[in-house]
């Protein structure tokens, strides 16, 4: 039987959940044996296979129009979608921006900040995405597995991926929800 295909990506997070994944250290070789790792931010395959993957893992919440596209695409191409980390599960620290308007946040960064010179303006080139309200992943697409933590620890991530690799839905509870 072919190995399950796994694809990951990151959105409005900090890459910390992917670093915690790498913190499984040499156990990554075991995961590489159990699954076929497809597109991830650190491999050169850029999108989850159009023909579909078995497991999609997304880190980060949604805070702009690019993230919305990433979330929808991953949901449509995977059978089981995992929200990895507090940003994906709840919105996380970046969701603190929701207490302010997007306009205020952009103004502070690109016009008002003390080190910004007279060229200050809010970037608006069509090549760039637009910021949106910050949302957790499940507010945008249905999610199958939630793995909270900021980040979740490497043992939990290893457990989640091993279970999924062997066709089981992981039961994330008790010490798997440990902050440390």
């Amino acid at each position, binding site marked *: 039987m072919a190995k399950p295909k796994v694809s990951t*990506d*990151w*959105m*409005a*997070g*900090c*890459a*910390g959940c*992917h*670093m*915690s994944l790498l913190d499984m*250290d*040499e156990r*990554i*070789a075991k995961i*590489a044996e159990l699954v076929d*790792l497809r*597109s991830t*931010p*650190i*491999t*050169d*395959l*850029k*999108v*989850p296979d*159009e023909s579909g993957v078995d497991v999609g893992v997304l880190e*980060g919440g949604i805070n*702009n129009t*690019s993230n919305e596209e990433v979330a929808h*695409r991953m949901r449509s191409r995977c059978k089981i979608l995992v929200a990895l980390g507090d940003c994906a599960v709840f919105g996380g*620290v*970046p969701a*603190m*921006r929701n207490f*302010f308007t*997007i306009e*205020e*946040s*952009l103004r*502070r*960064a*690109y016009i008002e*900040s*003390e*080190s*910004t*010179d007279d*060229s200050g*303006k809010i*970037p*608006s*080139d069509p*090549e*760039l*995405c637009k*910021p949106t309200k910050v949302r957790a992943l499940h507010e945008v697409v249905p999610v199958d597995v939630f793995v909270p933590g*900021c*980040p979740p620890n490497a043992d939990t991530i290893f457990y989640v991926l091993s279970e999924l690799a062997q066709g089981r839905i992981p039961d994330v509870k008790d010490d798997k929800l440990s902050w*440390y």
Partner: protein
Amino acid sequence: MVAQKITIEPVTRIEGHAKVTIRLNEAGKVDHAYLHVNEFRGFEKFCEGRMVFEMPLITPRICGICPVSHHLASAKAGDDALGAPPPRPAALLRELMHMGQIVQSHGMHFFELAGPDLLLGFDADPAIRNAVGLLQANPELTVQAVNLRKWGQEIIRILGGRRVHPSFAVPGGVNKALTKEERDLILSGYDEVIATIKTGIAIMNDWASRNMEDINKFAVLESGYFGLVKPGNTLELYDGDIRLIDSTGKELEKFDPRNYLDYIAEHVEDWSYLKFPYYKKLGYPQGVYRVGPLGRLNASDQISTPMANEELKKFKLINGGKPVGNTLHYHTARLIETLYAAENVKALLDDPDILSKEILNTCRNPKPQGVGVIEAPRGTLIHHYWVKDNGQIEKVNLIVSTGHNNWAMSEAVDNVAKTYITGPEISEGLLNRVEAAIRAHDPCLSCSTHAVGQMPMVIEIRDVEDQLVQSLRRD
């Protein structure tokens, strides 16, 4: 032929979210290439109203690869704002955590992010041109690389309780002393780590000697160079003065980093969420400078640890004692810094104060502002807080490491596109070289824009009427 636009989206094997557009003129030659950093989160706004002692725990969420840099810079800004300089043992302990981070971050970058290009080749099949491909091609080297990163991460965990987003530094000091057992545990991994770093240096030197043509034509830029130094222009990563030199090696400035606003400013372009820092006296873009390993090794004259200092001497010979401007030598410089950081861990652990319990200064002499500056793996990191009497944050200004390199990365992308894309045939390997120009800087785009993201890879070539001429897909 009509003018065209090529888009590379996303750039992979970097931290963060970037896209490149390459504009071709009617003759099919590259007119200009742009690096669009495509995310924004807004830490400088949403931290308003928080307490100054929360900042060392909020700001690391800017980045999961270098959270320790933010954690420490934030605590230093707190030290400054509260008038509470940490006792010497606390400063040593913070520096120890910082060295752990330099080792893990630089190590991961060389072996796992940049490594696939150097070890498997720029033109290798994208399906295997990654860390998993390396694992299959050279499992022994991959294990060594994993252990190198692990050693750095374990130093962070031992001191701060966890590897990513630890809790350790507070305004005035740190919250935990080091035990003798922990010290010995860290030291036990030292020899293997030194061996792995030396293997990395040998790999890079070998690659450089076999690829001299690339080294000498791939984005060899002129710019200033910027980084912290200690007296004698000694390389410094935790605390020192900022030194800025020009492209010939002449010193332009040396200043207390807390006065950064007198010397540098940030320029904004419409087409990127990342701003462009520059030296005010020369204006933009004449005043651009590079930071991170290449910036720091150029701005330094010596390194305080012996093995790394020997490597620095060799590095200085590359351009006859003048600053080294070759973008690909970022990889060489990064490994030399990794060696320094590892040697420095041992030096710190041998310091008699490292096991002291005197780790917190509780005196308070508050000021309305505090600035904390540190050399993160990718460059000079500045945290500036305006703090009310009650300890609440009024305003925040951050200039984050990779940001200083924005001009250089964009220029490198433009340079490499123009050097390597010369005909109508545009292969995936050529586009990978454009990405490699960015990767050499080891950018942390989450950090620099205080944001992150990713998107699918489609290269579209459109004519001036926006009709699709050719489409390349990488998936």
